[in-house]
């Protein structure tokens, strides 16, 4: 085995290039090379690599974990290097470990409280770490992620302001021409969900698709699985792997074609599904050549998502600043087309156009604009979660410190003895630190079990799909190891210094009144624990109240008992007879045909002006919704003035109904009968004049975080879905009936329905998540804090057994004894309330400011955490003190 020509990993150089297998976990290999004797290294590593190779071929799960297990199994005495076999360090380490294990076993009760609390804290932190790491990893997988930027628009026009994730169609090409810093640019035109049909009449629904420029594949590193990603020709399309499987099963999809919106598309390539941590998940990308508007030169409408790949080393903020030089060039012709305002007048009136760049990796957490592709995450929530996780961990660490120092008297003799026998303070600190780290390691092991067991629950709660947090993409394992060590050291440092500083002579003579001296420190720590608990509970209460407020606030329409039938536009002309038939059914109260619902995300806005208006800033940007005369009764909306659409009036074809917000914005005193027209020379839905016939009371159709926007209801056919109000308690009957009827009309179209209240709840998904997590955190925090308090109270009561005995002999009643015990802790509780509540109120008012429509912080909300914490703390301490106070004093006094 004495070959001299070794490379680092135990194989001879001439053979090093033979490696064909998958890469084995590097750190495990290094550990073996570091710890095991060199003469065994080659065969051990060889066996392990072959083992890994075989696992890989069998597609075995948890490969890395198994590899580590096998690697660690080689850490046996015969294989280890000699310095590890016989050295003083090792003997001392063994010794200290033995003592640590003994002390763990001696006081099982306190060890349990310590370790269990710590395990819960670590598990919480791991869950949060997992969540945060996943959120932070968004869009980092694209090869040029650091050079990709998304253009976003910020426009102000008279009284209307937009901040949009979309841009005008010509911007991409024009800016690439104007600015050499832009290496490549491309556009998506997002289209939401769609139904496509393969040649066997199989229809499938996809959630997200877009028309795209060929250049998107230069900017984004899509992984090609089959064919080539080429959509430069019209009627070509590339699709994701999962869509290919849905459409064509296991056969090769390239070259096949399918129908989408009455056009045959030919598949040129299949790409790997876009990873979950991306801000878009297009399942199919159609050639932009099929999108007639893609070549228009219209700077006034914003429908395209523009992405730029910048040259290496470009400062994007400097580039942004340069954008201002071209606005006039592009926007003044547009301005001239719709009004007679000059560019200078436009700017003077306070209007502006401004485009900026968002670094790709920041989109998910930092962008919250109109017309985002998907709902993004929130950096604020990341901070909130991170802080709460840390707090829970701190509470658990404090338990450890408190119980360790409180129990110091039991270790004092040991410390004294060791010092007398010549132990240095340094060694004692080492010993106690090791004990603390051992605790942390055991806790981390339990936390790992918890983590993997509760993973499905976590994924469910946060809408993520993480399957192996330690060794999967997230690679949490090194963080966990480092974290455990840090927690062990942090929690151990105070007890270690405290315990090791005993004066041996005093201890051995019994002069030191132990466990009492550091009382102030323990009290401070307990106060901090309860402070944190109170803040977390208060946070949970406020978030829950706000969600309740949203759920129960009168919305201006009734979201309950409404079923929405999707995909109805696929029915074509049959939709009329379908809706007629549905209305006949006894369970259906009313039904309306529309793609625009207060709970859906289907939105589009256009400006309108009063017909006689000559001023250029009179226009109002309106949400344009299309519906029929059944809309208002089905939604249970309330007409403040005027009347509903009437099918029998031919003149109603250009009738519109405004909401109150639109009336206010137009400034109409007498809205009924007012005439409106689109701005400039455009038409909206083929119409160039509108007559206001009614005014709707305001209803909430956007998030409670924003004011209600002006909107207008047009009496124009929209076949996106059918919404029907049905009789309570008849849900099952209705669905059976709908399914049957649907199949009779067309069995090939997917039958899909949702309920309006569910759609509404989905809009507050992230708040709901926040609320769930906060409930869990606050519950854990108070539980761990009480666990610690329980241990501490048990210990101090044990110390004061004699005092209690004497008091009892001298005639103290049980209630007096208990009150004496409780009052000490109650003082701490009061202090922690006084500290925590102002902080909590400040933080939560900040959070509530996110909402335009919000609940107020009430006395009740403040009372809940106070009562909860005081009660729980009292119960905890009472359990201990009741037992102590009930004891026969003889038992406590007869021993000396």
């Amino acid at each position: 085995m004495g070959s001299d020509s070794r490379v680092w990993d135990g194989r001879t150089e001439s053979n090093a290039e033979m490696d064909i297998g998958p890469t084995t976990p590097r750190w495990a290999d290094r550990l073996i090379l570091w710890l095991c004797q060199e003469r065994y290294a080659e065969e051990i590593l060889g066996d392990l690599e072959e083992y890994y190779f075989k696992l890989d071929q069998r597609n075995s799960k948890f490969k890395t974990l198994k590899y580590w297990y096998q690697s660690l199994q080689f850490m046996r005495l015969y294989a280890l290097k000699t310095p590890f076999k016989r050295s003083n360090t090792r003997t001392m380490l063994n010794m200290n470990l033995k003592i640590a294990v003994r002390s763990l076993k001696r006081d099982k009760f306190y060890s349990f409280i310590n370790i269990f609390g710590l395990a819960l804290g670590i598990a919480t932190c791991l869950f949060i770490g997992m969540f945060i790491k996943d959120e932070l990893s968004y869009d980092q997988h694209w090869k040029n992620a650091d050079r990709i930027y998304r253009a976003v628009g910020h426009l102000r026009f008279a009284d209307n302001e937009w901040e949009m994730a979309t841009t005008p169609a010509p911007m991409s090409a024009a800016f690439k021409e104007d600015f050499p810093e832009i290496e490549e640019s491309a556009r998506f035109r997002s289209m939401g969900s769609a139904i496509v049909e393969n040649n066997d009449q199989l229809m499938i629904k996809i959630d997200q698709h877009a028309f795209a420029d060929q250049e998107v594949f230069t900017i984004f590193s899509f992984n090609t699985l089959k064919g080539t990603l080429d959509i430069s020709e019209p009627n070509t399309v590339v699709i994701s792997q999962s869509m290919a499987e849905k459409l064509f099963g296991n056969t090769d999809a390239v070259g096949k074609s399918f129908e989408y919106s009455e056009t045959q598309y030919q598949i040129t390539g299949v790409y790997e599904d876009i990873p979950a941590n991306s801000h878009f998940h297009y399942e199919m990308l159609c050639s932009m050549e099929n999108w007639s508007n893609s070549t228009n030169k219209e700077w006034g409408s914003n429908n395209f998502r523009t992405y730029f790949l910048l040259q290496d080393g470009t400062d994007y903020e400097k580039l942004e600043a340069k954008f201002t030089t071209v606005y006039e060039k592009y926007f003044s012709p547009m301005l001239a087309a719709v009004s007679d305002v000059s560019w200078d007048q436009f700017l003077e009136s306070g209007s502006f156009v401004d485009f900026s760049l968002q670094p790709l990796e920041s989109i998910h957490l930092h962008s919250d604009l109109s017309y985002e592709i998907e709902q993004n995450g929130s950096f604020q929530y990341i901070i909130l979660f991170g802080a709460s996780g840390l707090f829970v961990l701190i509470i658990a660490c404090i338990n450890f410190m408190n119980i360790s120092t409180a129990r110091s008297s039991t270790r004092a003799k040991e410390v004294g003895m060791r010092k007398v026998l010549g132990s240095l303070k340094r060694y004692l600190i080492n010993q106690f630190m090791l004990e603390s780290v051992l605790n942390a390691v055991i806790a981390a092991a339990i936390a790992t079990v918890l983590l993997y067991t509760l993973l499905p629950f976590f994924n469910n709660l946060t809408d993520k799909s993480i399957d192996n947090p330690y060794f999967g993409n997230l690679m949490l394992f090194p963080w966990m190891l480092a974290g455990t060590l840090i927690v062990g050291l942090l929690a151990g440092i105070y007890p270690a210094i405290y315990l090791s500083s005993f004066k041996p002579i005093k201890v051995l003579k019994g002069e030191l009144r132990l466990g009492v001296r550091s009382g102030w420190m323990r009290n401070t720590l307990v106060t901090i624990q309860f402070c944190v608990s109170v803040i977390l509970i208060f946070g949970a209460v406020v978030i829950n109240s706000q969600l309740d407020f949203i759920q129960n606030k009168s919305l201006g329409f009734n979201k309950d008992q409404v079923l929405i039938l999707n995909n109805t536009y696929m029915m074509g002309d049959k939709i009329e007879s379908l809706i007629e038939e549905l209305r006949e059914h006894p369970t259906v109260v009313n039904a309306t045909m529309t793609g625009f619902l207060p709970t859906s995300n289907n939105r589009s806005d256009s400006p309108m002006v009063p017909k006689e208006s000559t001023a250029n800033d009179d226009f109002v940007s309106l949400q344009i919704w299309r519906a029929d005369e059944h809309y208002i009764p089905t939604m249970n909306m309330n007409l403040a003035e005027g009347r509903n659409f009437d099918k029998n009036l031919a003149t109603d074809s250009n009738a519109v109904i405004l909401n109150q917000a639109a009336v206010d914005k137009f400034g109409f005193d007498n809205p009924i009968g007012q005439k409106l027209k689109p701005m400039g020379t455009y038409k909206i839905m083929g119409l160039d004049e509108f007559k206001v016939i009614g005014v709707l009371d305001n209803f909430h159709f956007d998030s409670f975080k924003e004011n209600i926007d002006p909107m207008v209801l047009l009496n124009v056919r929209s076949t996106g879905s059918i919404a029907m109000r049905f009789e309570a308690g008849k849900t099952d009957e209705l669905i059976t009936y709908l399914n049957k009827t649907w199949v009779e009309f067309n069995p090939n179209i997917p039958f899909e329905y949702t309920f309006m209240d569910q759609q509404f709840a989905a809009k507050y998904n992230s708040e709901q998540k926040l609320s769930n997590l906060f409930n869990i955190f606050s519950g854990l925090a108070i539980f761990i804090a009480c666990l610690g308090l329980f241990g501490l109270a048990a210990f101090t009561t044990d110390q004061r057994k004699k005092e209690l005995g004497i008091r009892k002999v001298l005639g103290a009643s049980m209630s007096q004894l208990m009150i004496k015990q409780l009052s000490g802790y109650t003082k701490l509780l009061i202090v922690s309330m006084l500290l925590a509540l102002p902080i909590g109120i400040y933080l939560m008012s900040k959070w509530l400011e996110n909402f335009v429509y919000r609940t107020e912080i009430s006395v009740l909300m403040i009372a809940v955490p106070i009562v909860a914490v005081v009660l729980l703390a009292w119960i905890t301490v009472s359990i201990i003190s009741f037992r102590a106070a009930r004891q026969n004093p003889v038992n406590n006094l007869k021993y000396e």
Partner: protein
Amino acid sequence: MKGSQLGEFEEIILLLVAVMQEDAYGLAIQEHFQEQTGRTAAIGAVHSALNRLEDKGFVESKLAEATAERGGRRKRLFSMTLAGKKALQTSKDLRNNLWDQIPEFGMEGLKATLKWI
């Protein structure tokens, strides 16, 4: 030199080395062990046993060709020595001897039970 007794695990490993003849190295022996006994053992445990057997002089080893799935590392092939064979024989003889001394326990036991009933 440690004692030359064979532990149960060592004995099975030694038997496996004898059975496998040509291609007896750590991972292969571990796999065979799991197949034949249905028990699991870490590769490290097998490796450790092989080294103990080598120390006791029951097996000897040499390095063989490198293969690609081992990342270009060589195998250490084990083969049984004469002493190993003797040790196995002794162990087997001991057992056979003891077995022979059991007084017909199958039939006797049955008879005893019948009588008792």
